[in-house]
């Protein structure tokens, strides 16, 4: 309307079988468009049973060629479904694909309204809006960006290890960054894995060694990512390699330093607080890499200035107290985040007494307790370190499925509870109770394991435990931990005295997940898990191109799922690497420097640092490679100097006018 130029527009109204035609009078819509939008440049309007079928597409292609259409509007389903289809059709007919607009009259009209007259009228408005808009569309080209073949994997748990190995085995380089001194993650702490009862270390260690020795993997343990700049294909990452105080090139991993170190520290990380380590340590025997680290916060030398026992005894002179943190810069094309989870802090459920009642244990504590390499050599005993329990209660859903704590199911706790029940039964012969709200044993061979545990004689009580107390009311209860619960299947409150309580604590996002998300430019759900691009169809990609997620960082999951996601993320990365370049939607903002007044209002608005100010010329510039196309700066520019392709002011204003056309120039219905 705004300009004299006359485009030749084709309008195509889809019946979608009866999906649209059942509610919208599609013939009327097409006729109306042909007649009433003629002044806009509509030269042809057709309706057809299935526009997305090959015949429907051919119809459009034919019209483009024969009628010389310069713009196309397809009134059908949501653009998220078939925009690509019709753009490709236009391209095949020699028309720039960005000159096609979809008018959603299925999701937004026929499926949500019932009155045929009203629905038909709304469809006309939607078509009118699309016609007005498409006239303002301009031909665009996809942006092509080269892809750096290196990949960064953050987190050395099983998901990260899997992802790194897949990419490395395909022949591309991987930087694997791990915060702790060794890779292995939570899986390295476990004794057995459900439902097969494989020894966790036996199946994990070979993978760790492979990752540690792979020529295509650069292992950066005791390291954290500090800064990320760039965009898909071209990230620049700064990694802080914390001072180990051990020269890796000299250290043989003999372990003498650890043996001689006089300082014992409670190991809150690997031993879950249930055991000790030294101030110079490798977290566990099979650690990869084998080099220890000196824990500066606890080392006597760093605290008091004397000791140096490790240095004295080191046969290769590998100890270096003066070592400083090192900043490493790497260039990568893609990033996989596999940063894992934190265990829910069971002390928050004060009615379960963890931290107050000695013989209440968390799941991770129990893992260490039952682990042959753990503090008790695998003997399941009470906190006194010697008494074997005669009865054990395992409480499910601790901190999960509870609006007071985490309002989601932690997925693994049921199976974990069953695994514990089996281990307790097998090793101590104790009576075992499982307290559950619902048994969730979905997936292959899981329910069979449940049945096996039932067969072993574990007692199941359906009810969320109300409290664990040491206030016994009678001789039977005194000196025991009493689990008070409603047995909901019996409809009675029960008090069950036991010697030991294990809390099947839930999983929760890493405490710093929000900051890490910000660092990499991805978002977290309200619960704090990293948000995937699509919960079903794209679970390992994120809304930020080039950043992928895998394992528990995306949400609670078990080992098989974590491994699957690690592999899936690496497949996505390999796909990108092999394409050598990536095509980006050409929705970008740009500054007309003639019009820019240099007011800098837009400068602070971009979270992707795409906007920079050219001091010498006093104008603002936008880096199209960094720009993600949100359009916030376009909306903010008081001079109208910034325009956004695909969603320009002209397009949107025209669409507004088009949508309201029927209000301005009433057309007899």
């Amino acid at each position: 309307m705004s300009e004299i130029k006359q485009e030749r527009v084709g309008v195509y109204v889809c019946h979608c079988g009866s999906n649209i035609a059942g509610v919208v009078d599609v013939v009327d819509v097409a006729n109306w468009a042909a007649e009433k939008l003629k002044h806009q440049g509509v030269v042809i309007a057709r309706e057809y049973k299935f526009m997305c079928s090959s015949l429907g597409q051919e119809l459009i292609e034919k019209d483009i060629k024969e009628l010389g259409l310069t713009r196309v509007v397809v009134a059908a389903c949501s653009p998220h479904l078939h925009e690509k289809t019709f753009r490709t059709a236009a391209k095949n007919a020699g028309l720039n694909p960005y000159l096609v607009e979809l008018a959603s009259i299925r999701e937004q009209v026929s499926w949500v309204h019932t009155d045929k007259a009203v629905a038909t009228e709304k469809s006309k408005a939607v078509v009118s809006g699309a016609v007005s808009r498409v006239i303002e569309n301009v031909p665009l080209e996809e942006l092509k960006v080269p892809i750096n073949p290196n990949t960064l994997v953050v987190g050395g748990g099983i998901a990260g290890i899997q992802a790194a190995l897949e990419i490395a085995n395909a022949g591309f380089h991987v930087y694997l960054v791990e915060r702790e001194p060794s890779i292995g993650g939570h899986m390295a702490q476990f004794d057995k894995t459900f439902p097969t009862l494989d020894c966790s270390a036996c199946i994990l260690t070979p993978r760790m060694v492979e990752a540690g020795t792979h020529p295509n993997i650069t292992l950066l343990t005791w390291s954290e990512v500090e800064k990320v700049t760039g965009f898909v294909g071209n990230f620049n990452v700064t990694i802080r390699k914390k001072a180990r105080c051990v020269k890796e090139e000299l250290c043989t991993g003999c372990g003498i330093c650890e043996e001689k170190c006089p300082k014992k520290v409670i190991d809150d990380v690997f031993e879950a607080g249930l055991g000790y380590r030294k101030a110079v340590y490798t977290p566990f025997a099979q650690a990869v890499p084998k080099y220890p680290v000196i824990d500066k916060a606890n080392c006597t030398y760093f605290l008091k200035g004397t000791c140096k026992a490790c240095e004295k005894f080191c046969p290769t002179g590998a100890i270096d107290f003066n070592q400083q943190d090192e900043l490493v810069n790497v260039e990568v094309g893609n990033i996989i985040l596999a940063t894992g989870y934190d265990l829910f802090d069971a002390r928050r459920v004060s009615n379960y007494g963890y931290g107050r009642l000695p013989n209440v244990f968390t799941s991770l504590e129990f893992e260490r307790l039952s682990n042959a390499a753990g503090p008790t050599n695998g003997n399941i005993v009470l906190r006194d370190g010697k008494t074997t329990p005669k009865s054990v209660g395992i409480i499910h859903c601790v901190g999960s499925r509870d609006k007071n704590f985490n309002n989601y199911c932690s997925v693994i706790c049921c199976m974990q509870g069953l695994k514990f029940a089996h281990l307790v039964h097998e090793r101590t012969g104790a009576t075992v109770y499982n307290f559950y709200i619902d048994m969730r044993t979905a997936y292959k061979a899981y329910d069979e394991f449940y049945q096996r545990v039932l067969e072993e004689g574990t007692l199941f009580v359906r009810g969320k435990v109300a409290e664990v107390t040491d206030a016994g009311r009678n001789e039977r209860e005194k000196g025991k931990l009493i689990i008070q619960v409603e047995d909901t299947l019996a409809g009675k409150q029960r008090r069950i005295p036991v010697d030991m309580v294990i809390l099947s604590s839930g999983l929760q996002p890493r405490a710093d997940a929000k900051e890490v998300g910000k660092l990499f430019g991805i978002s977290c759900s309200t619960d704090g898990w990293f948000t995937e691009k699509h919960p079903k169809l794209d679970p390992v990609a994120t809304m930020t191109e080039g950043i992928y997620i895998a394992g528990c960082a995306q949400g609670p999951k078990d080992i098989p799922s974590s491994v699957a996601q690690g592999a899936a993320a690496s497949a996505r990365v390999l796909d990108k690497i092999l394409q050598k370049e990536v095509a980006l939607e050409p929705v970008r903002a740009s500054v007309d420097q003639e019009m820019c007044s240099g007011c800098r209002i837009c400068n602070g608005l971009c979270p992707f640092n795409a906007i920079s100010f050219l001091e010498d010329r006093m104008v603002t510039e936008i880096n199209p490679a960094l720009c993600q196309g949100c359009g916030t700066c376009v909306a903010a520019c008081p001079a109208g100097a910034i325009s956004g392709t695909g969603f320009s002011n002209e397009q949107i204003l025209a669409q507004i006018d088009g949508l309201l056309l029927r209000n301005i120039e009433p057309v007899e219905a």
Partner: protein
Amino acid sequence: MNKYILYPGCSMESSARAYMESMNAILEPLDIHFEEIDDWNCCGATEYLGINLIPAYSLIARNLALAAKQKNGTRTVVAPCSACYLNLAKADHYMQERPSLGAKVNEALAAGGLQYTPGTLDVRHLIDILVNDIGLDAIRNAVVRPLKGLKVVPYMGCMLPRPDYKNRWSDHEHPTELDDLLRALGADVIDYPLTTECCGGHMTQIGPETAFELIMRLVADADDRGAHLMATVCPMCQMNIDAYQNEMNHFFGTDYHMPILFFTQLMGLAFGREPDELGIGTELVSSRNALANIGVEVPVTQEPSAPRKKDEGLPMPRRWTKQEGKKEAVK
């Protein structure tokens, strides 16, 4: 000076007179000034809510409306009684959470020329302001006679730390406010896992057997842990454990003697006040022997002149003879 609006509540004037007296005795050393809500009415306890909703909330809200009108320089209403505290806090909270309730209650208040905007006031309990506003240091400084050697079980009761609409308490199950305060007085505080278990509430009146069971659990555990006495923050808890302990003993055939005092009475003692200024001696289970542990001599008051002779009177009516069955059920 620390200024507050006071909602004393009915029991402070009668059964919990000792609470009132001892509270007044500690105000001055801690520089606290209370201004009573003029013409306050009963909060309805736990009874009114079960009869009719809007009148129950209107009854409570009248106090809030009066307090809001009266507020001069403070918006904090202090309730020393746990039930009153909960009712006032609950009305304030629900009137906000359910605007239609707020509107109806205000419609009723308007009939008496009053109005209350929920959220205007802060409803707090006495121990909350003592621990969090006045502070344990100030309390420690006012102690002249530390309660060393007195083994005390801190008993918070249920309606204070729960449901805790405004997140004021350290924990819903095992709050430490009372422990910390008693420790500041120098007492030997016993870790008491039942600190927020129920005393039976109004069940002493309508279903005594249920209440006796609950009282029994509390007293027995305190006794097991070697307590000299229990310290409470709530008139209802004090009343149930003190006045019904004898009944409870009779019912179960036990012989417990567990005195229960208000925490303010212990504060008063630690601040150097004399027992008779603090209402000590008005308890039915005497704290004489317990307080002898810290060298406090409680003057002998006139004991009830008609002490029960166990064999006299009619036998207890046993409405529910499922004493055994009861034990069965809780297994």
